């Protein structure tokens, strides 16, 4: 009989952290839906083959670095090194913005090479790339906003917070959007 074994466990995952994990599962489903649609569409007629913009390699590098700085920021917070923590989340947020800018430059590059992303002349191969990458950029933007909120909180003199839960939740999300981009990058290059 499964009786009280589970409930007597001293340590349980914090509900907010758990909620973030479920939310990530939810986001995965949205992207799984889109990349499945991509595969279905690719196997039908009139699919345009083109090379990914080179700048996507740089953006991949940037988001990888930002995961490292995010990880260090969480470590600094737990060690109560608030000055180091503040500068590290600032760098992380800046790298996030840089990532978004680089993705945008990738779109500009495609348009410059006469590969229309939207509009009547577009091929759904390019439109898919635009929509999926754009949706991912919005998720990164959400992470940047969360970091900004935490940045403001870290400077606030009114509320002193010692709980590492918000930092850990934000960190988990940040690594998640990183991994999500790695998946998309591999998908565009070698799977899709």
């Amino acid at each position, binding site marked *: *009989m*499964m*009786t*009280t*074994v*589970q*409930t*007597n*466990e*001293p340590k*349980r*995952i*914090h*509900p*907010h952290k*758990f*909620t973030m994990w*479920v*939310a990530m*599962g*939810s*986001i995965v*489903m*949205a*992207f*799984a*839906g*889109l990349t499945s*649609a991509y595969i*279905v*569409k690719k196997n*039908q*007629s*009139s*699919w345009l083959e083109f090379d990914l913009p080179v700048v996507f390699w740089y953006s991949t590098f940037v988001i990888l670095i930002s995961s490292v700085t995010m990880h260090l920021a969480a470590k600094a917070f737990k060690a109560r090194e608030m000055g180091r923590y503040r500068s590290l989340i600032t760098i992380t947020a800046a790298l996030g913005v840089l990532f978004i800018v680089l993705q945008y430059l990738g779109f500009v590059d495609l348009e410059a090479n006469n590969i229309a992303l*939207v*509009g*009547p002349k*577009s*091929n*759904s191969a390019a*439109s*898919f790339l635009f*929509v999926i990458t754009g*949706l991912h950029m919005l998720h990164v933007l959400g992470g940047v906003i969360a970091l900004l909120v935490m940045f403001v909180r870290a400077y606030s003199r009114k509320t002193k917070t010692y*709980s590492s839960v*918000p930092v850990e939740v934000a960190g988990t999300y940040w690594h998640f959007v990183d991994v999500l981009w790695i998946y998309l990058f591999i998908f565009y290059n070698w799977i899709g």
Partner: protein
Amino acid sequence: MSNEAVVHAHGAVTTHEGHGDHHHEHHHHETFISKYVFSQDHKMIAKQFLITGMVWAVLGGLMSVLFRLQLGYPDATFPWLEDILGKWAKGGRITPEAYYALVTTHGTVLVFFVLTAGLSGTFANFLIPLQVGARDMASPFMNMLSYWFFFAASIVMLSSMFVETGPFSGGWTAYPPLSALGDASPGSKIGMDMWLISMALFVVSSLLGGLNYIATVLNMRTKGMSMTRLPLTIWALFFTAVLGVLSFPVLFSGFILLIFDRNFGTSFYLSDIFINGVGALPNEGGSAILYQHLFWFLGHPEVYIILLPAMGMVSEILSVNSRKPIFGYMAMIGSLFAIAILAFLVWAHHMFVTGLNPFLGSIFVLLTLLIAVPSAIKVFNWLTTLWRGNIRFTPGMMFAIGFVSLFISGGLTGIWLGNSALDIHLHDTYFVIAHFHIVMGVASMFGMFAGIYHWFPKMYGKYLNNTMGYIHFWVTIAGAYLIFWPMHYEGLAGMPRRYYDYSIWESFKQFVELNRFISTVAMIVFAVQLLFLFNFFYSIFKGRKVTTLNPWGANTLEWTTPIHPGHGNWVGEIPEVHRWAYDYGKDGKEFIPQTTPVGADESDHH
């Protein structure tokens, strides 16, 4: 995140550790706004979902009465219709555009706003913290947002009915090209834009709610409440939330592509088709079938999102009012789990006639028919729970038994429709209408009514009037069968759905009288729902007062709270749980609440 959320979360966590929970009454002053409008109390949010759902049920039901009027009396004119609908009923007869708009909005509203938000929004919010033993949801603030996103979705959907070109009219499934091309029909213009905005807000609402329900069930159970001691309501609501969290994002993805096709000239769904009055489209290579895949990947789990909460509540109500343990508790959980898995593997059975590869079709036939196994297990267990029970026929119990009846009748026709060969004949006929209205629509409404009658004393501290309850039950169940049973015959005869006038159609002329009969019954059933609403609102204020904590003699935790529980549910400590929720008629005792410790001489316990 609000601080209060964190306080609550920690409050619950300490219970697990040392059971030394501090007294948790609320000292801060609650204003009208914080108590009734932007409330973070799960019980108030549940009532907000319920009453908003009721408003939509009345509107959606009224729409069906209006289009049944057209189907039942295709030649008649009703001047009063022009008074209320204006140009949509010129000369007292509903125009074809209005007819399609009514059918579409009826479907959207009933499926999403009434039977998703109104059903699981109400009962997941109300029952999860009360039955697992938590002060509130994992995040009360997100929970509040969930309701207000639903409210915003409601406002946008309601507004779409008043725009000049009318609300969306291409069917609740919103298939392209009707949904992707503004020029395709009047309803495809701004009405469709508003439909999309409303549904996007609705998806956000569902996700916020679902995340909370899952986190609460898994993390905030009181001491002793292991997963296998949870009432079946909670298991059902848990699987419902999992289905929603995993399937709504896919619908959202489908909508994003649709928005790009509508507004930014992409060719995901649109190809070089020819539109009357517009000419050939510039789009190239799009596939309308792709949308159907994405839509039904949500759409099929959605029918279980609607049905599972009803199944869970019915299991609980049948057991309480039979004064017997639920038969096959673990089999009930297993079958819920099986249904939740299979829900994701059967979507293409909505698409047998889209040119789907017949071999692939046969796999979907197999997976679809497999759902009969867990469904039959559930029906068997409900019937064996009733068998030789000491049944109390409360209105809640009547509706629970009615649910079982409807689930059997509607489920059997599912076996017909799940066969791809039979589906060639039955697809898009009234047979399908009859099937899903009985098994999903009316059955889930019965689950919802059962839940309302059963938990009304906990919600408002009053009883609903029983006499009105019995009238409501008998007229509704008789009416449901009289409306939908004849539709099976119409469907077998090949009568297609979604047509405006069958009387001018030689093959289906013989059904004119039958359609009139169906329409008449529909109006009577609608009127009886108004009686229910009167009962509901009258009883909130003037109903018989609840004087005991546990009026039904039930075992679950919600009946250990005060008659009017405050925000935080229990005064003092959250009770500890020592047994499962179904110790009825055990060792000579009528019922043993979950909070009663196991006695030394007690027979085998769960």
